[in-house]
């Protein structure tokens, strides 16, 4: 016979302000099976928990219902209290009378009645609870890092330096990410590649890191500690074992007119290519979409002829590599909007209206102009350059309400770089607000304005058009009484909005992690779990979560690495025992499962196995389903699918759910 204890929390006044808690406790005490009922100011406090522990012991309670906050808040707390009192922790249920009742309804009899209904529902459930025991699963102490930008590099190095294995997957032929494209970095103006490339090399040479470039994640199954990941190794057409990286192939490649991604489309590359001189690995791949051998059916073949080591192989195919990892760091980075996004600025048709990344390449010593700032249309030094902050960002009409965070700083940097290289040039910046909250950031912007004579104009630009070989930038100066301003410019740089990667959505769906409406990946909690995702074992690093600058990205990447190292610090993981089970009984029944295996078809985790039931002589009697508790995640889709209810979900069993419905609707008083 069940002896249930009901504990109603006031939560200070959060609950008691709208619910008559004494009445709920009193009426709950009269429910069938309830042996003890009480209300208390703060159930989650130490005295509150002691009250529960003492009541369980004194009244020989077999289960408890805590009428308080959401189970997502304090279920763990009260389960521990139940365990402390000597009963199985899974005989504790939460009745959510705060988030689902007192906080959303006014003080009324109806609200109190609803609270009682919620408590009664859980009393009926807990009567049907069973003792459950946490499941222990081993952990594969290898981490997968998706993305080889600065976020992925930092996370991989931190994890690898802690002594654990790391597998890094990068979709492009080289690691380095957007940071490798930058010229100088704010607020110190140190050269981006100078600080990045040593770290890239460190990744490549680290004994604990396995690097897969030109590779993507194909599928992810499994769960925290035990993920199985299929990695698609795209056909490189070059045998990296044989290739020495001499570069003869790309020097001789006749397909030379392919827009260079690394230079943001401002120069050309060949079909067989390494993205940039410091690429890691510094070995070429063939871009098959642009290679004559592949587009024109076996014509050309120059690179194979020229290669001194015979490393070129046109017949390689994509291969799938299956790996087992315990945790995944998602560091897939970001993209920016390009100038073709802006009808008011000419849809990107004018070559001298460029985006921030293109300016980075112009300013970079390794860029198409060797670091001289010359405009793309005719190669002349621009005498007047206009920089537009907030191009797209904070613009509801463009569907991008958020602040891209890095543009204020990099616009100041761009204006400074321009002034440092073209001393007589004039730099104008149109801005909405200057957001330079960071260590030494505001000082940096002041430097641009005060020392480098950059003209900051607070206002937006409505139109840019061409007139007599000049770009007419039509804006407004809102600090001078909304006076219209027109600047004749030679070049315009748009600080375009930071957006999620094109493939962010598909990556999120493969990883089963959530994302926001802008396709940035969602953290588990905006303040207290900014690194974790809602899928245990998967963490976020860098701008795939939201726009971030380099210091923030590196900090988050180290945090993601720390989360991984914490996970790897134990030998096994304790999991909630909310898993499905197939009933079993003694011979000759064995089980009511008929072996239809509909459960197997709907299971998203391949957790249903086939078990052969044999007699002593070894004759096959029947096939029955069996659940692999290590793989089962407890969704219960199989339970709803089962035709004769042979499979059930621990913690949310058929009997429990039915009891909840009946308990909820059948009011005894």
């Amino acid at each position, binding site marked *: 016979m069940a002896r249930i204890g009901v504990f109603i929390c006031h939560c200070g006044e959060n609950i008691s302000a709208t619910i008559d808690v004494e009445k709920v406790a009193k009426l709950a005490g009269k429910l069938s099976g309830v042996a003890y009922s009480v209300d208390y100011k703060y159930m989650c406090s130490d005295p509150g928990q002691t009250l529960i522990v003492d009541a369980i012991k004194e009244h020989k309670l077999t289960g408890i219902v805590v009428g308080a906050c*959401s*189970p*997502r808040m304090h279920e763990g707390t009260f389960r521990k209290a139940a365990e402390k009192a000597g009963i199985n922790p899974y005989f504790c249920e939460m009745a*959510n009378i*705060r*988030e*689902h009742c007192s*906080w*959303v*309804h*006014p003080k*009324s009899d*109806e*609200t109190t009645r*609803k609270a009682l*209904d*919620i408590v009664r*529902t859980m009393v009926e459930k807990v009567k049907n609870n069973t003792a459950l025991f946490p499941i222990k699963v081993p952990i594969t102490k290898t981490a997968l890092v998706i993305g080889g930008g600065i976020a992925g590099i930092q996370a991989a190095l931190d994890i690898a330096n802690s002594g654990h294995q790391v597998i890094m997957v990068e979709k492009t032929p080289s690691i380095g990410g957007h940071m490798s494209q930058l010229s100088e970095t704010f607020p110190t103006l140190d050269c981006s590649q100078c600080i990045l490339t040593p770290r890239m090399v460190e990744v490549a040479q680290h004994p604990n890191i396995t690097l897969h470039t030109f590779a993507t994640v194909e599928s992810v199954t499994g769960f925290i500690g035990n993920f199985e990941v299929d990695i698609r190794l795209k056909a490189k057409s070059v045998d990296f074992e044989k290739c020495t990286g001499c570069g003869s192939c790309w020097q001789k490649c006749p397909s030379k007119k392919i827009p260079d991604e690394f230079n943001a489309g401002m120069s050309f590359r060949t079909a067989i290519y390494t993205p940039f001189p410091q690429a890691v690995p510094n070995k070429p791949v063939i871009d098959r979409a642009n290679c004559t051998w592949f587009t024109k059916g076996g014509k050309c073949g120059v690179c194979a002829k020229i290669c001194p080591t015979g490393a070129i192989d046109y017949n390689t195919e994509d291969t799938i590599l299956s790996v087992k990892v315990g945790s995944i760091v998602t560091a897939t980075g970001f993209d920016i909007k390009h100038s073709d996004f802006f009808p008011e600025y000419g849809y990107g048709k004018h070559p001298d209206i460029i985006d921030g990344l293109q300016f980075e390449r112009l300013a970079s010593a390794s860029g198409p102009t060797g670091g001289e700032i010359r405009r793309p249309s005719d190669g002349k030094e621009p005498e007047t350059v206009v920089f537009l902050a907030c191009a797209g960002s904070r613009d509801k009409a463009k569907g991008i309400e958020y602040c891209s965070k890095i543009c204020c700083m990099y616009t100041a940097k761009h204006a400074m770089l321009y002034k440092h290289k073209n001393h007589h040039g004039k730099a104008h910046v149109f801005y909405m607000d200057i957001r330079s909250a960071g260590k030494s950031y505001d000082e940096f912007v002041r430097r641009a304005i005060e020392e480098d004579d950059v003209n900051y104009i607070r206002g937006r630009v409505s139109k840019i058009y061409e007139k007599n070989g000049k770009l007419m930038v039509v804006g407004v100066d809102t600090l001078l009484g909304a006076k219209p301003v027109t600047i004749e410019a030679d070049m315009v740089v748009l600080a375009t909005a930071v957006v999620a990667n094109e493939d962010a959505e598909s990556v999120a*769906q493969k990883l*089963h992690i*959530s994302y*926001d409406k802008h396709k940035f990946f969602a953290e588990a909690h905006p303040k207290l779990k900014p690194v974790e995702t*809602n*899928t245990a074992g998967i963490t976020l690093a860098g701008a795939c979560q939201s726009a971030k600058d380099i210091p923030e990205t590196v900090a988050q990447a180290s945090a993601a690495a720390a989360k991984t190292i914490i996970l790897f610090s134990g030998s096994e993981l304790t999991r909630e025992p*909310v898993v499905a089970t197939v009933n079993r009984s003694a011979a000759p029944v064995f089980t009511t499962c008929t072996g239809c295996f509909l459960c197997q078809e*709907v299971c*998203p*985790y391949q957790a249903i196995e086939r078990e052969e039931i044999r007699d002593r002589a070894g004759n096959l009697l029947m096939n029955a389903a069996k659940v692999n508790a290590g793989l089962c*995640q*407890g*969704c*219960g*889709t199989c*339970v*709803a*699918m089962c035709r004769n209810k042979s499979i059930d*979900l621990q913690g*949310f069993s*058929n009997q429990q*759910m*039915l009891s*909840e*419905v*009946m308990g*909820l*609707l*059948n009011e005894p008083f």
Partner: protein
Amino acid sequence: MAEPFEPKIVAFVCNWCTYAGADLAGTSRTKYETNVRIIRFPCTGRIDFMLLIKAFQNGADGIIVSGCHPNDCHYTSGNFHARRRWIVFKSMLDFMGFPTERITFSWVSAAEGKKWAELVNETTDSVRALGPFTEYKNLDFTTFNQMDHEAIAR
């Protein structure tokens, strides 16, 4: 004067999206109608639709089934199974003449506290307009019971 009709609405929701969305409505203090009672499932894919029948048998006037948006299921595909099951179940109920407008099938994410409040208010209003669900209660079981007894007697 009889009290105005207040429907009983049972909500079958998943733990990860809609339950969390309802929690968010709570933490944001978004006010909504008191008529709804939530039953928490791990996933909408777990919901055995026979429980909906049980709820109506036992006095529910309206039902909400809600989980994660398509593609956002915590368990990858449970909400798709729920949606398929709902389509089949609804066509069966329609065939039997059951007033399926008493059941609302929806998606509410963990971020949509406001949508949850709106969903509850809209469903409450529509079920209130439909009036109490009495079709089941008005069924005359006496003949059935007699037939049962006679059958047992034979």
